[in-house]
């Protein structure tokens, strides 16, 4: 009968071998690739995302969610972030500031979120910024556009936890002024939202355009409260003033209603040069359909036909395959948010807030919208979105951009320190 009991000598041998294997192991089986530096990361990585899912703008939340889900599925299918699984919870922000704060506290305090993303309204973003400093988690803003978020809260007050991945009001007004300066228009008018966003954009548009042209005047403005469905009284105000140009930061459903009602009133035959800074949003293009006239200037925070490169076109194809829909701009900013977090975590080797902030500042990364760089001083993502003229295209059941003009973000975004000469375009 063979001796089955392990002798003391055998035991020593085995022990030595095990020790040697353990010592050699990390060398022999060293992780390679991007997460090489992060063997100690404890998963999962949790991202709390909030956007509006109720009320008249609920469609925006749905579009955010498509980007969020696609990014989560793709990242987890490819091994997660630094080898760790990505987990996302999506909540309704209802567009109200108190709800946004409540959600953020829930995400961090109860659910244990490592990062936060989303936020549609400027009011919510401004209210949430100080809370982020207290909660000490990175918040990636994907839709709210007010420049005060990055100029005042991040740059001046030093709330380093807040970043913004979408274009801010600079795109809507400064870039618009770059386009408007070459139009044969001397008198401008607006119907815009009767709240912060509308006022700020019109002021910025006027200031920047006046620097280019001394011969323009701004002869009529009419302000529509949030929730306006009947724009006919506002349209009258503009027609009375007989302007040559019309600029409007109305957005989403209200822009659709306004375009249709303006069309019925023969507005676009009277006013030939029209600019809609957020007219290139998917819901607006689809909602207006053929009723959006040709030769209207539109822009947005991303447009699915720009840039016309492989990365973007592949992404649009994947998005359509997953959702049977063209991506809205919030789908792109939501999607790219997760890749920004992924790169920052993998580069810093940590999900610790301070280290991730350090990695994000000045970080360059590729996204469907093109190359983005997070500006170190104010945490604003620098990337280009075109302005374009609407045109019918038999390939699409809605208007798309024909002729495009790209004003580089470096040229039209305000620059730190945001006060004094040389901080506002033209530079």
């Amino acid at each position, binding site marked *: 009968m063979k001796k089955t009991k392990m002798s003391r000598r055998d035991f020593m041998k085995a022990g030595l071998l095990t020790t040697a294997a353990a010592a050699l192991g990390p060398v022999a089986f060293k992780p390679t690739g991007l997460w090489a530096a992060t063997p100690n990361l404890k998963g999962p990585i949790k991202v709390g995302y909030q956007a509006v*899912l*109720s*009320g*008249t*703008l*609920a*469609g925006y*939340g*749905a*579009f955010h969610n498509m980007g969020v889900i696609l990014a989560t599925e793709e990242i987890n299918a490819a091994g997660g972030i630094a080898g760790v699984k990505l987990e996302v919870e999506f909540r309704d922000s209802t567009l109200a500031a108190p709800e946004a704060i409540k959600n953020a506290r829930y995400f961090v305090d109860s659910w244990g979120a490592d990062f936060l993303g989303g936020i549609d309204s400027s009011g919510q973003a401004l209210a949430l910024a100080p809370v982020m400093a207290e909660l000490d988690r990175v918040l990636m803003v994907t839709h709210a556009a007010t420049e005060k978020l990055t100029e005042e809260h991040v740059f001046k007050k030093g709330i380093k936890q807040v970043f913004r991945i979408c274009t801010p009001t600079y795109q809507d007004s400064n870039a618009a002024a770059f386009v408007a300066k070459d139009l044969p228009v001397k008198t401008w008018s607006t119907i815009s939202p*009767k709240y912060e966003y509308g006022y700020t954009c019109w002021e910025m548009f006027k200031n920047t355009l006046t620097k280019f042209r001394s011969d323009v005047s701004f002869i009529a*403005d*009419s*302000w529509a*409260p949030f*929730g306006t*469905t*009947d724009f*006919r*009284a*506002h*349209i*009258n*105000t503009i*027609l*009375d003033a007989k302007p040559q140009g019309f600029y409007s930061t109305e957005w*989403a*459903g209200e822009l*659709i*209603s306004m375009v*249709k*009602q303006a069309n*019925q*009133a*023969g507005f676009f035959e009277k006013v030939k040069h029209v600019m809609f800074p957020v007219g290139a949003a998917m*819901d607006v293009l*689809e*909602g*207006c*359909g053929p*009723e959006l006239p040709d030769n209207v200037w539109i822009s947005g925070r991303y447009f699915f036909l720009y840039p016309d490169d492989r990365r973007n076109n592949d992404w649009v194809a994947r998005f359509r395959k997953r959702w049977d829909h063209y991506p809205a701009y919030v789908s792109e900013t939501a999607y790219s948010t997760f890749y920004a977090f992924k790169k920052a975590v993998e580069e810093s080797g940590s999900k610790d807030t301070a280290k991730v902030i350090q990695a994000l500042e000045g970080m360059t990364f590729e996204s469907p919208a093109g190359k983005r760089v997070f500006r170190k001083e104010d945490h604003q993502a620098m990337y280009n979105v075109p302005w374009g003229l609407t045109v019918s295209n038999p390939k699409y059941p809605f208007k798309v951009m024909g002729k495009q003009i790209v004003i580089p973000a470096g040229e039209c975004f305000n620059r730190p320190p945001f006060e004094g000469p040389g901080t506002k375009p033209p530079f």
Partner: protein
Amino acid sequence: MLQSIVHVCLAGLSAGMFIWLVASGLTLIFGVLRVLNFAHGSFYMLGAYFCYTFLRFMGENFWLGLLVGPLCVCAAGFAMERFFLRYVYHLALPYQLLLTFAFVLLFDDLVKIFWGAGSIGSPAAPGLSGSISVLGRNFPVYSLFIIGVGPLIAVAMWVFLERTWLGCIIRAASSDREMASAIGVRVPALYTGVFMFGTWLGAIGGGLAVPYVGLLTPGMGETIIIDAFVVAVIGGMGSLKGAFLGALVIGLLSSFGTRFIPTFDMFLTFILMAVILVWRPQGLFGEST
């Protein structure tokens, strides 16, 4: 200037008549059933969605959609009254408000489930999509149509309530429920009928909104219900005459305000409501209680 004022008036009239379409059903239900129906805005929304869906199914025929859509919403109104509201008539007003508000949330989510959360751009009404020149400026034909439909509904309701046997019974039941019941009126069935009729009015408002607003969104009822409530308060809760005049006043006031005193255009409406609440709490045509 004349052109401007005429167009401001027209825009105000169409806006006012549009609010009236929604406020009429709200007022009728409150006047007879004494229920403040928050979900009335939801009937407006459902009316719009059903009308849109039927017009898509029936060869883009808006008028057929307008006929069939609101009838489907009546079924929802029937279910809501028969199986839920009926059991809270005897409770205090806050309970009724809570119940109808629950239906607002329920209907919003149902719309999101069946039609999606995104907004839907809706087509113009066939035959009424153009515009005609009024003093050299285009005015949409469909807005003129709304200006015409409003008074038509008002007159029809007046004739129905004041000049028909059924209208007489409804008025009797609304002024004294017990007495009407005692002389053999089947009050519960009558209430269900009135509620369905109010629902139908809200849904017709929604159907007519399909070309007027040009947009369907979940939650679209919540924006219009505020205006309808303001109108009902100004006119006197439960008074159809008051609601009609209130709607006209609000429509014209907001149109003139937007054009001539834009800084205060929202303020005007609500200051009027506040003044009326202080000076005449029962509203312009409300019965003092």
